[in-house]
Every structure is written in structure tokens, then in C-alpha cells.
């Protein structure tokens, strides 16, 4: 078998292959995914310093949400019991904001695909999971910043942490963990449909009903029938309920809802986190390996 067309430059090509040139040894698997992931995460985080729009999205919009709901709906919605609406509201705002924050992952990956940076990453001897690990990690950092800002704004308008500090930390951790899982769903979507506009619209269509048809903004008692069942088993409801409980924002006189998901909201939320990660981490990683712009 020869490698050239007869009669052209056959003499230049020997068909022999070289010994592979030595290259630096790299750690394998998880270590590499984490170190490379952190390098990519740092790259994503630089954006917050250099792109003012990101800063607005991450920092200003949570403040706006808290103030908007606290002052616009504050008078109109009665969360049943002694806890005021503002106190009731914050758990829901937290849940909604971190879930929306997770859509950043999809949009960010879609943008990287469009700009060809993913091709650059995929041509490097780096961990394949690292781009996704990096992206989802930096989005956790964004969400953490949003949470801090929202909590501070919340405290200003009357929200209080009434359980211990440890419970409160668990509450924040649960919120971030759930958002992290959603990030992996959005990563898959972002790789599948590499268009920032489509991602933003699509996530809006899914996440708006998920967060509004829940107990995030209105009490459970205002839902009936099928809608009530949806609200009861909606993971965003569980997340909201769990954070209210952990921050101590649930009125003791409120009847305990008649669903397992609402009786064990933290556990139910964790179940969703595990399920989502188990499905979407492998799915996204596989999609990344064969994604093309």
C-alpha cells in the first residue's frame, strides 16, 4: 500500500511512521478533571470582572427581585399564619434565582460552541469532563454571589434567619446543590442546541412554570386539584420548603402538607439532585465528546 498517487511525489513519502514524540505525563481521571476544571472555571469567572452585563445579572437582578416581590406582592398575598409575606417570600426567591442562575451554564456553553472555543478545548490533551466541570463550578460561584446579595437585601426588608447558623448553612448548601444539578441539565441542552437565544427562550419556557407553579411565591393553600399535586411534587416546591424550614421561616401553626415530598423536603430535593446528576453528568459528558459547532 502506498500513500500517494502514482506519478506524483511518491518518492518523498516513505509511508513509515515516526516513534511517538515524548509528551509530559498528565495525571489521569478525576484529578485531571478537577485541576483542568478549575482552570476553566477561573476563565469563566474573569467575565464577572470584565463584562458589566454579567455583574448586573448576578448581583443586581436578585436585589430587584427581592424588592419587587416584597413591596409589590407583599400586601396582596397572605402566607397563612404569623410569618409575614416577606419572610415567606425569601425562600422562594432564593430557589427561583438559583434555578434561573443555572441556565447560565447552557447559555455559556452555547456561546463557547458558537465561538469555536470548545473546539480549541477539545483539541487539547485536557480532561473531557473539565470544560463541563469548570462551567458548572463557575456557575455555582455566580449563584453563591447572588445568594449572598439576596440574603443581605432580604435582611434589609425584614427577612430573618430564625434557626441556627448551621441549619442556615445547610439551607444555602441545598440551594446551591440543586442549582448545580440543574446546571448539568442546562449543559446538556447547551451542547445539544448551541444557540444562546434558543437556550434562553427554552429555559424560560421550562423554568417559569416550574418556579411559579410552586409554593415559591404563593402559599400551597391557593392551589387545587391537579395543580396542587404538581405543586406538591415539584422539586422547586420542595427546595423552597426545605430552605424555609432550615432558615426557620415556617409558621408553626401552618398545617403540614399531605405529601411525603413536603414532609421531607430536604431529602426529596437531595433525591432529585442525585437523580439529575446520575442522568445528566454522563449524558452531557458524552454529548461534549461528540459536539460540533
Amino acid at each position, binding site marked *: 500500500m502506498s*500513500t500517494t498517487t502514482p506519478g506524483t511525489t511518491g518518492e*518523498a513519502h516513505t509511508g513509515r*511512521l*515516526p516513534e*511517538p514524540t515524548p*509528551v509530559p505525563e498528565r495525571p489521569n481521571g478525576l484529578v485531571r478533571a478537577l485541576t483542568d476544571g478549575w482552570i476553566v472555571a477561573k476563565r469563566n469567572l474573569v467575565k464577572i470582572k470584565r463584562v458589566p452585563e454579567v455583574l448586573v445579572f448576578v448581583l443586581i437582578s436578585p436585589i430587584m427581585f427581592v424588592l419587587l416581590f416584597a413591596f409589590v406582592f407583599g400586601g396582596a398575598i397572605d402566607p397563612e399564619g404569623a410569618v409575614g409575606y416577606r419572610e415567606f417570600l425569601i425562600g422562594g426567591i432564593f430557589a427561583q434565582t438559583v434555578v434561573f442562575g443555572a441556565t447560565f451554564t447552557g447559555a455559556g456553553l452555547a456561546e463557547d460552541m458558537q465561538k469555536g472555543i470548545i473546539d480549541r478545548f*477539545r483539541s487539547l490533551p485536557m480532561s473531557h469532563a473539565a470544560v463541563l466541570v469548570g462551567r458548572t463550578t463557575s456557575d455555582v460561584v455566580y449563584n453563591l454571589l447572588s445568594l449572598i446579595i439576596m440574603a443581605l437585601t432580604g435582611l434589609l426588608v425584614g427577612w430573618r434567619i430564625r434557626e441556627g447558623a448551621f441549619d442556615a448553612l445547610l439551607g444555602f448548601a441545598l440551594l446551591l446543590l440543586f442549582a448545580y444539578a440543574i446546571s448539568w441539565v442546562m449543559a446538556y441542552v447547551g451542547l445539544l442546541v448551541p444557540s444562546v437565544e434558543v437556550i434562553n427562550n427554552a429555559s424560560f419556557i421550562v423554568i417559569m412554570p416550574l418556579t411559579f407553579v410552586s409554593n415559591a411565591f404563593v402559599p400551597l393553600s391557593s392551589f387545587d386539584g391537579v395543580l396542587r399535586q404538581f405543586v406538591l411534587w415539584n422539586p422547586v416546591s420542595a427546595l423552597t420548603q426545605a430552605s424555609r424550614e432550615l432558615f426557620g421561616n415556617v409558621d408553626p401553626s401552618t398545617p403540614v402538607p399531605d405529601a411525603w415530598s413536603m414532609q421531607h423536603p430536604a431529602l426529596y430535593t437531595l433525591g432529585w439532585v442525585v437523580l439529575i446528576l446520575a442522568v445528566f453528568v454522563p449524558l452531557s459528558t458524552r454529548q461534549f465528546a461528540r459536539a*460540533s459547532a
Partner: protein
Amino acid sequence: MVDMIQAHGLVKRYKEVTALAGLDLAVPEGQVLALLGPNGAGKTTAVRVLTTLLKPDEGTAHVAGVDVRADPDGVRARIGLSGQYAAVDEHLTGFENLEMVGRLYGLGRSRSRARARELLERFDLVDAGDRPSKTYSGGMRRRLDLAGSLVAAPPVLILDEPTTGLDPRSRVGMWDVIRELVRDGATLLLTTQYLEEADRLADDIVVIDHGRAIARGTADELKSQTGGERVEVVLAHASDREAAVRLLGAVAVGEVGTAENGRDLTAAVDGGVRSLRHVLEGLEAEGLEVLDIGLRRPTLDDVFLSLTGHAAEKDTDENTDAAEEALR
């Protein structure tokens, strides 16, 4: 000499399109191969296969001695890819972009930084090194992207249309940079739509169309495939045409071509300068006035048109098939 890039019978099919239809390539160490073809010829698909971004449906490929299918990570550690779109992060500075790539190649922090500084210097980006690359011109971005592919000093470089979309000045600048890389001993595969680019940079050219090689050789070899040189004459007076055609006919291989205006004549010749002198002397002796006369070698454009322009014809396809049969 060994082949740093070697591909046999690469086939890649998409739903309706066959992007690669049995492509063979070989690039000996330290040489430059240009993959020349129009849009949609399969150039980028070939690059994506060689850089492990895409798995071929059939065929094998080795880059720097490593099988792209069996050890894609090993290939990635030994190649630098600079794509059609400058793949730099626009929010990072030039320095940060290069440092990040170094870290991802596994060079470690201090080596990555040193290498980034070195490359900024080499690519004339020192002044812009601390600015976000968003502020760069198209040419600067391409240079930064190319610098990114060199971070780990890989033995094999693959450049996908490195100058597409650049203004003429940036293009010439890019050519200088690429030539320098080759002087340093890199093996290079580049794709291009520009014949001039292939002519200037490449040792060898593979003309690709519909996913297969339709011709290969050096620029000179390809040019000679479309026949030899031509004598071109521009007459001062159309009335001299008959006499001039007679003169040219005496040295021409085949017919003498005449243009609509009756004053531009072309004749393929096989005697080179001798034929030209013969024509000149004849014109002089008969007192025919000429505005211009010259011996022109066929350009790569002529080659390209004569190869791809008839690619749809049975004849060409059969020739290519036969050539590929001979390879197997």
C-alpha cells in the same frame, strides 16, 4: 524520512452528504502540505478527523506516530490546532489566553507563564498582551490563536484556513509567521481556498473536491499537469491576426486561441523560451506590431479550474477512482 501525518481511506458521511470519500494523506516530517479546495470540499472535515474532533466512519489516521482512534489524547498532546475561527476567549487578555492553554497542556504555572510571554513577543503582541482580546483586530486575534496552538511546541501543526477573512496585509504577515514555524522544523498541514497561499507556503499540495483528492504534487507538478506554458500575444491591429495565427501555429501544441476582439492570441507551446523567440523573430520579420507578448506558465488557478471545473464529468471521476483503486 517518516510521515508525521498519515491518513488512509478516510471516509466520513453525514446524513445526506459524504464529506470525506476515501481521502489519503501523507506529510513527511518537517514539510508543509496544503489541502486546497473550495468551500464544502471536505477540508475542515479532514482537519477535524486528524485533530480527533471527529471520528471517521472508515479509514485510519496517524499523527506524530499516534493513532487518532486508539489514542486521541496522545494525538492531542502532540498537535497544535488553529481553526477557521480564531478560538480565543475574548474576555481574557492575550497573556491569560496563552497561559490557560499552557496549563491545559499540563505545562504547569511557571512554564505556562514563561511560554505565554515568549509567544506574545514572537507574535508581536507584547503591547496588547494585557488587553482583553476582544479589543484585538482580526489579524491580531488570528496571531493569538496561532500562538495558542504553539504553546506546547507540538511537532505537528494543523491550520484550518489560517488567513480566511484577513485583509491582504495581515495575510502576508501571517504567511511570514507560518514560514518561520516551518523553518523551526514543524510539520504542517494547512487548508486553504487560496491558490496563492498554497503556492507560497506548501511543499506539496493536495487538491480536494467532494471529499477526495483529485490531484496531488508540488505546485510546479500541478501546473505542468494542465499542459505546458503558453505564449500570449496582444496585437496592435486586428488586421494582423491571420498572419500572427499562422506564426503561432508553427510552434503551438494544438489550436491557437483567439479572443473575441481578434487581437489577443494564446498558444500552448512545449518549447518554452525557444518558442517565444521564434514567435518574436517571426513577428519582427513580417513587421507585425504587438502591444504585449509573453510566456506565461499556467497558474494554480488554471490547474484548479481544469480539475474541479470538470469534476462533475464522468471522465474525471473515473480517473480519480482508478487512481484510488491503485492505492488499495
